[in-house]
């Protein structure tokens, strides 16, 4: 049985008829233009599906779309503002913090939430914050460095198009 579900994603209300069992990650990904949020393990372990819910990182494979109604969801597409990359995106670019890119959307959102709360995190604090996200490629070193870069360049703008 379908019900009407409205989720506010990146500031816009998205309304669709869905079964209540629709997971937030799929609700997001089935919205045109919003496939940036990835889904990997499906078991709340890998962190590829992390989005912000009222500013806090959550694993969207373990939240029902219906549970997200009335809350503000922000996805990786919501990081860029007026054509300018968010400092965490710029940091990943500058410091080569991705290879295949599968974990990247979740890493970026987790990093954004960390910096919103703690603008000057230590390496240990960064490692703790991303401990719920798995990267199979980079060995994390560059990811940690990129998040530090973002902390040091809070007003970074895209340098090269």
């Amino acid at each position, binding site marked *: *049985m379908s*019900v009407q579900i409205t989720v506010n994603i990146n500031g816009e209300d998205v309304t669709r008829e869905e*079964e*209540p*069992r629709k*997971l937030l990650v*799929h609700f997001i990904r089935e919205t045109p233009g919003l496939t940036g949020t990835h889904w990997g393990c*499906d*078991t*709340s*372990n890998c*962190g590829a599906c*992390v989005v912000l819910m009222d500013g*806090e*990182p*959550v*694993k969207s494979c*373990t*939240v*029902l779309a*219906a*549970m997200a109604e*009335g809350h503000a969801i922000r996805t990786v597409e919501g990081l860029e503002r007026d054509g300018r990359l968010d400092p965490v995106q710029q940091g990943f670019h500058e410091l080569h913090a991705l290879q295949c890119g599968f974990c990247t959307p979740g890493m970026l959102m*987790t990093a954004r939430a960390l910096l919103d709360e703690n603008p000057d995190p230590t390496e240990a604090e960064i490692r*703790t*914050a991303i*401990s*719920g*996200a798995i990267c199979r490629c980079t060995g994390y070193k560059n990811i940690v460095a990129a998040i530090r870069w973002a902390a040091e360049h809070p007003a970074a703008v895209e340098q090269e198009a």
Partner: protein
Amino acid sequence: MQTPAPFEYERATSLAGAIAALHDGDGDARVIAGGHSLLPMMKLRLATPERLIDLGDLEDELSYIREEPGEIRIGALTRHVDLLRSQVLAEQFPVFRDAEEVIADPVVRNRGTIGGSLCQADPGEDLSAVCAALKASVVLRGPAGERVVGMDGFHLGPYVTVVGFDEILTEIRIAKRPHGGSAYEKVERRAGDFAIGAAAAALNISGGTIVAAGVALRALAPTTVEIKRAEELLRGSRPSEELFAQAGEIAAADCAPTADGRGPVDYKRHLAGVLTKRALRRAAARALQKEA
């Protein structure tokens, strides 16, 4: 793709309404709090509720850590992240912070709640041991009103508690006692995983003598085990390394681990002993700091 079996969904607008919905569901309805145990179970078809009652909108009412004159009261919808950051708990019952630092990962901790943790009653879940060592009690509300149940009578077995199908756990209560110290020790395979074994200890020390003791293990038996013989040994004794080693030996003997992917029985018994000793040592140090 893993998707739960179909169900109907409703948002509770009041506690009484949620209880009535559970009652009408006659065993086929379930509440969902953080969903971080229930949704994985539903994806695996280990749980197939026909109706989900989302407690999310009751957060204002049921998420709190309140310091009363004689006790601390924690609302059932309080999330792991709030338990981890609570100054009141860090001061009164540091065992919470010890445990929360190693429960799942920070993103999971943003969603999972204390009520969901206790009611899920996973043998490896951590907060049950914390609450058992602190001799906490829980408030269960059903159609007929409220009842208060001690943690020692809360678990009936793995994944089974005394919570009735039409009852909701609303609050956890922990009595404050003077000169208390508490600590949690856990060993896991990797960061964020459920325990191979874990021990919670709480002591109250007055005039150099232990006047109250709680020792509880998790993941080392089908459900939480309180090590009563160790508690008896500790009460009335003076804290010492030998005493804690003896308590550890009792814990190793009295737990009931099973062999699984996390390790064989003899290793888990060894863990029970070592973790009990370490937790007691740290709990005592914290209690003595307060007495000084």
